[in-house]
């Protein structure tokens, strides 16, 4: 592999992953939560594609495609649940849905 060394890719993906994790831990809006999860999934995708290049196999790239499709499916379900959340609780705030204790 020429050009950019693999460490940079891993650092980038670790950064994106941490931003996503930070978003999940701090944001209360369920939609922001979904976006943060997307960031974390994409961090994994960066890794998969970069490592595929490093190892010279296509496995990682193909898997990254799978992950994208699954992320889309997950968002579809998530939006549906957030929709009924909004109908029942009048907001998309995850902390509002707290009729049961954690």
């Amino acid at each position, binding site marked *: 592999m020429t050009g950019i060394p693999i460490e940079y890719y891993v650092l980038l993906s670790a950064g994106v992953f941490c931003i996503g994790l930070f978003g999940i831990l701090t944001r209360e809006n369920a939609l922001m*939560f979904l976006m943060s999860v997307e960031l974390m999934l994409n961090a994994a995708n960066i890794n*998969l594609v970069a490592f595929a290049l490093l190892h010279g196999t296509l*496995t990682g790239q193909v898997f990254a495609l799978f992950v994208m499709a699954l992320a889309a499916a997950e968002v579809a379900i998530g939006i549906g649940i957030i929709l009924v959340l909004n109908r029942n609780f009048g907001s998309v705030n995850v902390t509002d849905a707290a009729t049961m204790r954690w």
Partner: protein
Amino acid sequence: MVVDLPEWTALAPALFVGIFALILFALDSIRREPVSHRLLAGTAAFGSLLAFLSAVWYLVVGVGDPGERGVMHLFQDTLVVDQMGLFFAAVITAVTTMVIIASYDYLGEHAHRGEFYSLVLLASTGMVMMAFANSLVTIFVALELASLPSYALVAFLKTNRGSVEGGLKYFLIGALSSAILIYGISLIYGVTGSLQLEAVAAGLTGEHTSLLALGVLMLIGGIAFKTASVPFHFWAPDAYVGAPAPVAAFLSSASKAAGFVIAFRIFIEAFPLETMLAMGIDWVLVFQVLAVVTMTLGNVAAATQSEVKRMLAYSSIGHAGYALIALAALTNAGPYNELVLGAGMMHLLVYGFMNTGAFLFIAMVEYWDIGRCFDDLNGLAKQAPIASIAMTILLFNLAGLPIGGGFLTKYFLFAGAVSAGFWWLAAIGALNSALSLYYYSRVVKAMWIEEPTESTQIESYPLGLYAMLILAAVVTVVALPAFGPIAETAMSAAEILLG
């Protein structure tokens, strides 16, 4: 003389549930007038029953046993049909069938029955695929196929706040843990260069051990979510309480079993203890900590609950802790690995029946609408003696009293841990079992000894729910005299996996 079938038919258990899920979709959407509930439930139950029978049939004729018809490796070894896979496929499809038949009464006149049954079957397809998955790709895809319909099922009662809240929490934690899982997989791929489990094991060269360790930890996080163990357990009580009770039964039994089967396969096949210990990554230690914390937390929290359903939810976390002993008591090339692993599989089988039965009893209580707390069950035995007897048997089995299979599997688990030298794991497990007897007896006491506070009259006795509750109780009891074949299958499945 057995006719030789093409290789892909080895996946029949997964194919049956998958195809019938699609048939249900078609049936429900193509017909203009509403399809009768009986037809929908019947089709769904027929599909999962076929899947169950095919799994049992394969086990009987010796598919997945190298000595008989051989382990099937499909699609470049990304799927493998071995005895462990078939064993868990049988457990999962049996639970699915029971849940579907019980749901017939529970759903009643609900508007979206067709979707309900197909979602259950789709989730079941994902779980059966998890039992066969032999590559991190197929494991992840199957896990998502099991998870996504489950989120929708928990939030199925769209106008019920508890159901929506449970669904939201389940979804949020599920999405987070699957992101962590996939990141872990990407790190493992980076270190080993492959995703197929045996190839991962072959790619462990001893380089980049810190990255690998991080990947393995993240993988354990994803598994902990699916099995509802610490640290990703906190969705479980809310999701089970909020969800319709048959769905709670389905998730706490089948989904947990599916989580454990991927854990067994990943850690035995991809991360052999010998190589990993040489690299300084002691994953057994992680599982030991998780097992102790999970069973203690689950049981202590269960003892303090006032709602029966929530108590059962925490008790199912406790049982995840017991099953984790199967991984926590493994030793490097130890002579007792088979016993420990096999005991874990047996426990998940018997647990599948007793826990499903207990949650179906809750489904019946919800059907009668007599309240959720322990006090609300007061004097129930006078009005519904058969259901109360069945529930009593199931609860005592969950506690591990010697009246059914629950006792033997727990005994094997603890005995395996002691033989392997982890007497303290067994001791903590036994202490927790003693504690669990306390809170299970509270339900029994309420049903049989307490006088009813107000006279609630039970009007109807739902046939499907009753039949499945009794079936669950009978199977758990029969598992005691018929323990031989179960133990034999589980042990040989463990032997094949350990290879």
